[in-house]
């Protein structure tokens, strides 16, 4: 017995042999029950306190601890952040190539979107202009878009528009754009129409010089673009139109093929030929024929159409 008692304490295996009365020390490896109970109860209390009222009671505590550990975490992160970013620098050529391809694709998509933004804006403006034209010239218009342009090799200046008989378009109707006279409808299909531009060499339009009401005939030269010009032969050979005068359509019977009062262009210069005893005025057309898009076909008011018709008052029917 004394042998057992005299063994050095502090070693759990021997303490267990020793236990026989209340005076014996508790095992050092086992915590006091009261302590365990107190701490578990503390945990439970904390959980309860935090669980009710959405943790309002614990928030000040969180705040205090956060004030201490928040800056520490920030400081460590400031050191660690750049180091943690290192793996992003170490990348294979394959990855980079893939990323470049991806970015290029995205770039192209964005660029095309940007390009069409301008296009859409222009078309919107053209529709606006067309609406204004309908009001200005006082005719109802069927809006249409130029979908094809005759090749220069054919020496015919014609375009195809996407409105045909179903839209209420018939041959020998006047075609205008927001700027002025475009041409006349040559023939139609159910969904398209062919338009002879006034710049075509075969095209003759009766014109009237706006200020003096002198009439004449305009002939196309067969060219497009900025250099496209029309020649005006006045019936009255003695009259000399002045530069910058506006030429509008003269108008035909029943408005076919040309309605009256549509602007064609302005007088650019006047040539007189003594030998031929005629005067020739060069007209700068109001319409840019190389950039035709939205045009309007002049139709009688109340025409049945497969699309909205711009009425005289500018409304869409």
């Amino acid at each position, binding site marked *: 017995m004394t042998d057992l008692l005299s063994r050095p304490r502090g*070693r*759990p295996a021997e303490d267990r042999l020793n236990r026989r009365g209340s005076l014996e*020390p508790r095992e*050092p*490896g*086992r*915590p*006091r029950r009261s*302590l*365990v109970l107190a*701490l*578990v109860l*503390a*945990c*439970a*209390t*904390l*959980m309860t*306190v*935090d*669980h009710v009222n959405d*943790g309002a009671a*614990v928030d000040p*505590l*969180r705040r*205090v*601890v*956060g004030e201490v*550990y*928040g800056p*520490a*975490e*920030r400081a*460590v*992160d400031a050191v*660690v*952040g750049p180091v*943690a970013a290192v793996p992003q620098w170490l990348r294979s050529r394959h990855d980079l190539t893939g990323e470049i391809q991806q970015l290029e694709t995205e770039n192209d998509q964005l660029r095309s979107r940007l390009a069409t933004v301008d296009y859409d804006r222009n078309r919107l403006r053209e529709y606006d202009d067309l609406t204004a034209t309908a009001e200005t010239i006082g005719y109802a218009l069927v809006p249409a878009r130029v979908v094809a342009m005759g090749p220069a090799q054919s020496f015919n200046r014609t375009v195809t528009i996407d409105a045909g008989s179903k839209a209420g378009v018939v041959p020998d109707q006047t075609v205008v754009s927001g700027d002025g006279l475009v041409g006349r409808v040559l023939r139609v299909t159910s969904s398209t129409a062919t338009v002879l531009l006034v710049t075509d060499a075969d095209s003759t339009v009766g014109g009237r010089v706006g200020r003096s009401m002198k009439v004449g005939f305009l002939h196309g030269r067969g060219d497009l673009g900025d250099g496209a010009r029309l020649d005006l032969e006045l019936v009255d050979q003695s009259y000399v139109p002045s530069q910058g005068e506006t030429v509008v359509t003269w108008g035909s019977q029943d408005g076919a093929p040309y309605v009256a009062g549509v602007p064609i262009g302005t007088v650019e210069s006047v040539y007189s030929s003594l030998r031929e005893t005629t005067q020739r005025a060069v007209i700068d057309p109001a319409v840019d024929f190389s950039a035709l898009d939205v045009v309007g076909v002049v139709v009688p008011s109340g025409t049945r159409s497969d699309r909205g018709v711009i009425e005289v008052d500018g409304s869409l029917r």
Partner: protein
Amino acid sequence: MSPLVTLPRALALFVAVSVALVLQASLFSHLAVRGVVPDLVLLVVVAAGLSYGSELGLVAGFGAGLLLDLAPPADHVVGRWALALMAVGYVAGRLGAPGRPRLTQWWPVAAACAFVGTSVFALSGLLLRDPYVGVGELLRVELVSMVWDVGLALVVVPLTTALFARVEPDRVLA
């Protein structure tokens, strides 16, 4: 018998827990595997339990858990980590072999403690529905954190034990 909590011990524990807490929140968040970071604080408590026995392990676990519950990124119900780490400290103290344990002795203990700690935390979350997650997700997260903890125990526990031994060479159970 010497008092359980002495100033050097408390200081050493506080420093170790604080460093572990900050590293866990700031450093290992960059190394997170599927969002799961290793429980460094848990491993520090394991080291405390192994070094000082179950009673101080219990207290250290409570304190460290409370800090973990309150420190900034945390938003769960306060007391969950405190309860879990109490269990960790207790288990580490009970299972820890006396003397200067060999790797084969303390490593399984650390693994068991990691399991106990993460389990208690997860179960308390399930009971309190805080936050409410499915059991499948819970098991997945637990598995990843177990792997983290068991792996990092090889570094954290010896380092922390060495710190405790350096602070009080004569009082550590040896």
